[in-house]
């Protein structure tokens, strides 16, 4: 398996070895081994669910620190629209954007602007009728990675347009190079991110060889500095240039409503997303043109690196959007090549038992046999999320059957019985003495 970068990591000192994360991982990518959680690298999709549920805060998202922007001569902030929903009583997006300039950025380019371009490109592509329907949104990187490891047949339905973040970086850097005369390498573009999956999308992109984004700073990291800068701003610069459509991308349903076509579905929350993907795979869900999927409940506003409750943020965004134009960014003519994927989405069969199908069948038979012997409580005490997952781990050679505490208890009982029966031997010795 090739190298996988992950933004979701574990702080071993804080991990108590409990079962919260293993039970919530959508790809069964976590096991507890020797009292500590261990992430199975090739299975992890960086959705951040484990970060959300860990009561000990042992799961962390690796994002870049704000200091990193100093490595560049000209620094551009690319705020996700979810950022705008984090502030109480905000009635003007420009205050946030001015604040970003106050904390060290030279330029701000809203990701909601390029979201409007992506929406327009999607509409164009769908009108041309060349896409395989239903088209599945590629905006949430955790969903794209989930499809890549679990849904081989749906890979070809994924919309091959770069995310708004990627397109924003491309445009912003080009404009900055023109404006400043600096070489591209001296200009840095930084995404202000609501989630760890976007960090992975930058470090290990699926759609292109190298991302144009130079770093990702968590909303939660810049939040205190930014609020201070917003309060201290003397004048508010007119920087915002996006509409209802672009800002709408921050919450679930925003991307699909921008298609101006009612044959769509928008699902959010990783469990719901999986149910929809299963339904699509079985062709139970039909007659739809577009499927918007967000791994986090509520959409990007529900990202684990946000500070505000997802639904509060969503309500604020509704108010902020109200008097904006529908859309302020448009594509002239054809869809630029830079907006499109350079690579196809290829299925990564990380859950496959063996490359040899006969061997895989044997392993499957063993898994079923062992699962029958396990208690079926899915308690997680063995370190695997379910009894079936433990059976699979045993067959793959990663675990032993007596990691199951119920099996272990049986084994101990056998040993105890054997020991106590030994205790009855002396009576026999007495008989022998009489002889």
């Amino acid at each position: 398996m090739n190298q996988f970068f992950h933004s979701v990591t574990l702080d071993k000192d804080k991990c108590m070895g409990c079962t919260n994360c293993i039970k919530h991982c959508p790809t069964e990518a976590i096991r507890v081994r020797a009292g500590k959680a261990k992430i199975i690298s090739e299975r992890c999709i960086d959705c951040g669910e484990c970060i959300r549920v860990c009561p000990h805060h042992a799961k962390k998202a690796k994002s870049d620190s704000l200091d990193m922007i100093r490595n560049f001569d000209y620094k551009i902030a690319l705020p996700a629209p979810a950022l705008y929903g984090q502030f109480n009583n905000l009635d003007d997006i420009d205050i946030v954007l001015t604040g970003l300039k106050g904390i060290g950025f030279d330029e701000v380019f809203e990701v909601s602007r390029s979201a409007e371009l992506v929406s327009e490109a999607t509409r164009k592509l769908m009108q041309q009728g060349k896409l395989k329907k239903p088209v599945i949104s590629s905006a949430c990187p955790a969903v794209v990675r989930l499809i890549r490891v679990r849904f081989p047949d749906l890979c070809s339905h994924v919309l091959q347009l770069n995310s708004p973040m990627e397109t924003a970086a491309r445009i912003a850097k080009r404009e900055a190079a023109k404006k400043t005369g600096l070489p591209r390498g001296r200009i840095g573009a930084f995404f202000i991110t609501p989630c760890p999956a976007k960090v992975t999308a930058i470090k290990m992109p699926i759609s292109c060889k190298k991302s144009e984004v130079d770093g990702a700073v968590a909303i939660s990291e810049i939040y205190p500095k930014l609020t201070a800068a917003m309060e201290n701003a003397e004048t508010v610069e007119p920087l915002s240039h996006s509409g209802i459509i672009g800002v709408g991308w921050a919450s679930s349903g925003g991307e699909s409503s921008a298609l101006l076509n009612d044959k769509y579905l928008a699902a959010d929350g990783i469990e719901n997303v999986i149910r929809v993907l299963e339904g699509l795979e079985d062709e139970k869900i039909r007659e739809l043109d577009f499927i918007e999927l967000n791994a986090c409940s509520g959409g990007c506003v529900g990202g684990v690196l946000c500070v505000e409750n997802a639904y509060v943020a969503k309500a604020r965004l509704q108010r902020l959007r109200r008097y904006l134009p529908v859309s302020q960014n448009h594509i002239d003519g054809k869809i630029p090549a830079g907006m499109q994927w350079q690579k196809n989405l290829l299925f990564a069969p990380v859950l496959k038992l063996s490359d040899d199908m006969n061997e895989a069948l044997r392993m499957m038979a063993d898994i079923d046999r062992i699962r029958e012997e396990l208690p079926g409580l899915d308690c997680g005490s063995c370190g695997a999320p379910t009894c079936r997952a433990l059976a699979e781990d045993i067959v793959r050679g990663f675990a032993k059957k007596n990691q199951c505490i119920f099996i272990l208890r049986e084994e101990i009982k056998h040993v105890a019985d054997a020991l106590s029966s030994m205790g009855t031997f002396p009576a026999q010795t007495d008989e022998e003495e009489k002889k």
Partner: protein
Amino acid sequence: MSNTLSFDYIVPGDDFTRAGEASSDVKHKLKQIGYDSDAIRRVAIAMYEGEINMVIHAGGGKAHVEISPEKIEMTLADNGPGIKDVALAMREGYSTAPDNVRALGFGAGMGLPNMKKSTDAMEIDTAIGTGTTLHMTVYAKR
């Protein structure tokens, strides 16, 4: 050496919300075994439609699935009313499903035609008042 793995499922007739569980389980297993995605898709559709049929028309039934590296064989058997006119039932758009089921979006008369289309071979054994047994085969490589 080639080996075969078999699985049996009971499709409950009294709980419509559980229809599709067997096909979902088979699908997961085929993915882990490393089957070709096109074959998995065809098996999933055929089994799902079969399960739905058994629930709608026959009060449930049994599913038996055999997996080998070359092919997947599915046998779906029920003790339902049987199919009166097989040729008619195979016609797209023909359905005897009751209205309450149609309200859920089922009963479009595409079940059997879809199963036929998705599989490489399909046989129907049916007798009025006794039940229906369906044999379906999907080959690993079409």
